[in-house]
C-alpha cells in the first residue's frame, strides 16, 4: 500500500499519475483513486485507506461553487471534516486527512495537494 492516498474527482487532474511520477513531480508512493464524483466518498472509505497502510489521505474535488454535480465536493468536504474528528478521537493527527479543491481539468492543485500531504506524513 502506498504511503499517500488521494481521492480525485473525475473533473480534476488531467494528466496520468504515472507521467507525473516520471517527471518527479509527485512522490513515488502516491496512489490516486479516481471517482466519478467526490460526493460519493464515505467516511469509512477514508478511514479504510489508513487501515490499509496509508500515512496520509487527501481528497480533491471541484471548486465548491463550480462542482460538476452541484454539491458533490461540498459533501466531500463535510465528510473529510468528520474523518478529521474521528482521527482526533483516535489520538491521531487530524491533519493527516485534508480536502482540496481544483478547477476543471487542472492538474497543478492535485500535485500540490500530494506534496503537502507527503510533507505531513
Amino acid at each position, binding site marked *: 500500500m502506498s504511503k499517500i492516498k488521494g481521492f480525485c474527482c473525475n473533473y480534476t487532474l488531467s*494528466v496520468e499519475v504515472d*507521467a507525473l511520477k516520471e517527471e518527479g513531480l509527485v512522490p513515488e508512493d502516491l496512489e490516486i483513486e479516481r471517482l466519478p464524483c467526490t460526493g460519493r466518498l464515505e467516511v469509512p472509505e477514508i478511514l479504510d485507506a489508513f487501515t490499509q497502510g496509508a500515512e496520509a489521505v487527501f481528497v480533491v474535488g471541484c471548486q465548491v461553487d463550480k462542482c460538476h454535480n452541484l454539491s458533490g465536493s461540498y459533501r466531500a468536504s463535510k465528510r473529510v471534516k468528520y474523518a478529521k474528528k474521528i482521527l482526533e478521537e483516535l489520538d491521531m493527527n487530524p491533519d493527516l486527512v485534508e480536502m482540496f479543491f481544483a478547477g476543471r481539468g487542472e492538474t*497543478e492543485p492535485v500535485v500540490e495537494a500530494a506534496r503537502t500531504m507527503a510533507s505531513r506524513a
Partner: protein
Amino acid sequence: MCTMYCPRPVVDTYNERLDITRAPHIDYAQAIPSSYYIDAKACLRVNYETCNLCAQTCTAGAIDFTQQPKELDLSVGAVVLAPGFGRVDEKVLEKFGYGRYPDVLTSFEFERLTCASGPSEGHIVRPSDNKRPKKIAFLQCIGSRDETCGNGYCSSVCCMYAIKEASVAKEHEPDLDISIFFMDVRTMGKGFDDARKRAQEKYGINVIRARVPRVDQVDGKLALTWTTGDGEHHSGLFDMVVLSVGLESPEDADLISRVADIELNHYNFCRTSVDAPLVSSRNGVLVAGAFQGPKDIPESVTQASGAAAIASELLAEARNSQTVTVTYPEEDKALEEEEPRIGVFVCHCGVNIAGVVDVKAVRDYAGTLPGVVLYEDTLYSCSQDALKSIAEKIKENRLNRVVISACSPRTHEPLFQETLRSIGLNPALVEMANIRDQCAWVHAQEPEKATEKAKDLVRMAVAKARLLAPLEQPTVDVTPSALVIGAGAAGMSAALSIADQGYKVVLVEKGRSLGGNLKRLTWTLDGQDASKVLKDMVKKVKAHRNIEVLTSAQVESVSGYVGNFTSTISKGGKTQMINHGVIVLATGGREYKPKGYGYGDSTRVMTQLELEEKLARGKGFLRNAKNVVMIQCVGSRGDDMTHCSRLCCTQAVKNALKLKEAKPEVNVFVFYRDMRTYGFYEDLYREARKKGVKFIRYTSDRKPEVIKLSRGIKVRAYDELIGDDIEIPASLVVLSTGIAPGDNQELSKIIKAPLTSDGFFLEAHAKLRPVEVAVDGVYLCGLAHGPKSLEESVAQAKAAAAKATIPLAKGKVAVAPIVSKVNQDLCIGCGICESLCPFNAITLEKVGKRKKARTITASCKGCGICASHCPTIAISMGGFTDEAIMAQIHAFSPEGCEEE
C-alpha cells in the same frame, strides 16, 4: 548610430515582442527599403519635443523632424489590394494558456526563436527560465476550423509551417522530442507531402491526430490531454507548447471594403469567384494574396503576378506612356585599354565593418598594392552622396578599374556597376571584396585577424581587378508574340490575358476542341455551372483577334531562345513554322485511371468525374441506391503517384452534398486519410458532416477493400473507433482518383524544361519564381505544374501571362554579360559542352570543314559548366576568366602577389 544613441526602448514587434529595440530602428536586415525609421509613437522628440539625439548623431544627416504627413492624389487605372492577413485574437489563444503560462508560444514567436537573427540567436529557449526545452508540442488549428471563434475556414498553411518549424528545431537541437497534434495533416502543396514524410522519418517528429482542448500547467511543465481516433485518452507533459495560429482577414478589412467599395465574404475576406479569383466585386479593383483567402507564399506570389496581368490588360493602351528611359554616356574605350589604374574604396558601413575591422589600416594597405593609384575609405559607399563622390574621384584620377571593399556583390554590385556606367566605364570593371560578411560579421570576436583577412581579400580583389576586361552588353530584339501550349482552362486564360495585353498568341491544342479537363467538370467547387464558365471562355478565345487557335495540333520541335523561338507545329499531317518570343506551358494533366477496387469489373464502381456526369444527367440512377461509398486517395499519396492531388477531398465533399441533395435518405460514407478541404472549402466539409455524410479515416497500410458479391458489391474497411472491420453493402462505389501528369516527357525534352519526380513541370523557384521554368522565356501554369483547382489554375495562368509579357513588352532582352565564350581556334568540336549545357545555350555549327561550338548568348546563364569541362580550355567566362581567377588565387599568398 541612431539606434545606438536613442534613449527610448521600445518592444521589437518584428521579433514578436520577444526583444527590445529603440525608437529609431530597422525591422530586419533585409527590410525594403533598407533604411531606419523612427517609431513616432515612442519617439521623445516627436511626442515631447525633447531629446533630438539621433538627428545630431546621424552622420548622413538623414533625420528630419520637420517632415509632415502629406495627402497624395494619384490617378490610376487599376488598384491591387494586397493587405495580407490579420492575427487571430488573443482571446482565442488564452483558451490554450497563452498569456497565462509563459512557455505557451504562438508559432510566430517560435519562428523568431528558431531564426539565427532572432532574439535568442536561433537557440530554442523557454521564455520562463531561458532553459532549453526537451519536449515540445505543436497544437494545430488554433483559430482555424473553429466555429467558436467565428473562423470556420481552414488556414491552409499551418500544417506545413508547423512541420517546417519542427524540422528546423530538430535540425538545431537533434535531441528534441517534438509532437504535432493535427486534426488532419493538410500538406497538399506541391512537394509538401514529401517534406512531411521527411519530417516524420528523418527527424522523428511525432504526428498525433487529435485536437487538444486546453493547456494546463503543472509545476512549470505544460500538461496536455487528448483523445485519439480509437477513443483512447492520453495525457502528457511538455516543456513548451507552440500554438499554430491561423490566418485571419486583415483587422481593417471593413475599412478597406468601405474605402475601395468592394464586397467581403462571410469571413471578412475579399469576395471573388472561381472563374475570376483575382477580381473583386468592383471593376478595376483587384486582389492578391491572403486577403483573397488564406494561402501560402507560392500561391500569394502567383496571385500577385496574376493581378499584375489583369492590371496590364486594363492598362494595355497606356503601356509605355509614362516610362522613363535611362541614358548612359559613351564608353571611354581608350581609358579602358590603358594600363590598369585601380581605385580601392574601403567602406566603414557605419559601424558594421569599422566596428571590427580597422578600415584605415586596410585602406593604407591597399595603397601598397601594385596598380593602385587611389585608395580611400568611405562611411557608406552605397549612399547617394558617396556614390556621387566615388564617381567624381574615378573621373578625376582617370581610374579604369575599381575595387569596392564593402559588402556582398549579391546585393550591391549592380549599384556600383551602375555608377561606373553613368560615367562612361564598362560595368564589368568593378570588383568587390566582401569584408563585411566575410570579415566583420563572422570574425566579430577577433578584430585583428578580421583586419588581416580583409587585407587578404582586398589584395586578391585587386589582383583580379587588374585582369578585368570590359564586357559587351548585347541586347536581342523580341518577336512580340506568344505560343501557348494546351487549351484547357489555364491555357485559355493565359492566352486571353496575353492577347488582352495586346500581343499575338498562337494557342495549340492537341485535342479536337478547346477546354481540356474543364469539359468534364459539371460543377465548380463553389457550385457554379462549369459548362457556362467553359462556354464563356471558349467564346472569348475564338472571338479574340489576337488569338490564333490550332486544334488537333502538336508541337514537334522548339528552337531558339527567349525573344526568338521558332517552333514546328504539326496539324493534320502538315507542319508549319511559327516564330514567337515566349512559350507558356499549359499542357494540363489527366484523371488517374484507377487499378483495383473493382474499377472496370463492375458498373457500380466509378470515379468522381463519372459520378458527376451521371448526376448532371439526372437522379434516376439513385432510385435504388441505399449506400454510396467514396474512397479517397485512390492513386494519390501512394505507390502509383506519391503526390497529393489536392482537390479530390473537396470534390468528394461537393459530390456527397449533391447526392444528399438529390436523395436525402441515401447514406454516404467517405473513407479518407486526411480530409484536405483547405481554405473556405472547409465550410463544405462541415456542411457534409452536418447533413450526415459519414467520414471514416483509414491508414495507408489498411486500405478499404471492394468485394464483389454474387449480387452487388460490399466495401470492407477497418474502423479505428470500433477497432474492428466494418462491411458496407454498397450501391455505388466512387473512387476519388487523383490527377496524373500529362505526357510531359517528350515536351520536357523538346524545351529542356525539367520535370519533378512526379512528372509535373518544375518551376524555377517554388516561392520566388513559381510560374517560370529554368529555361528563359518559358512559363508554366495549370495542371502541368501540379494538381490544383480551377480557381488556382486561372490565377496561375494570369501570373504566367504577366511574366510572359515582360520580355514582349520590353521589346528587347538584355543579355547578362557573364556568359561563356568559345575560342573557335582552340575548339575541337568534341561536343561535351553542348551535351552538358543545362540551358540549351551551346550549339555545334559547321565552320569550314569542322564542327565548332558556339554560345547562344541570349540563353547562356553563365553557370560555367562548359568552361570547366572543355578539354582544350577553349571556353572562357565573361568576368571570370581563368587568368583573373588564377591571379586572384595566387594573390592569396602575399609572395604570389609579388611574383605577378
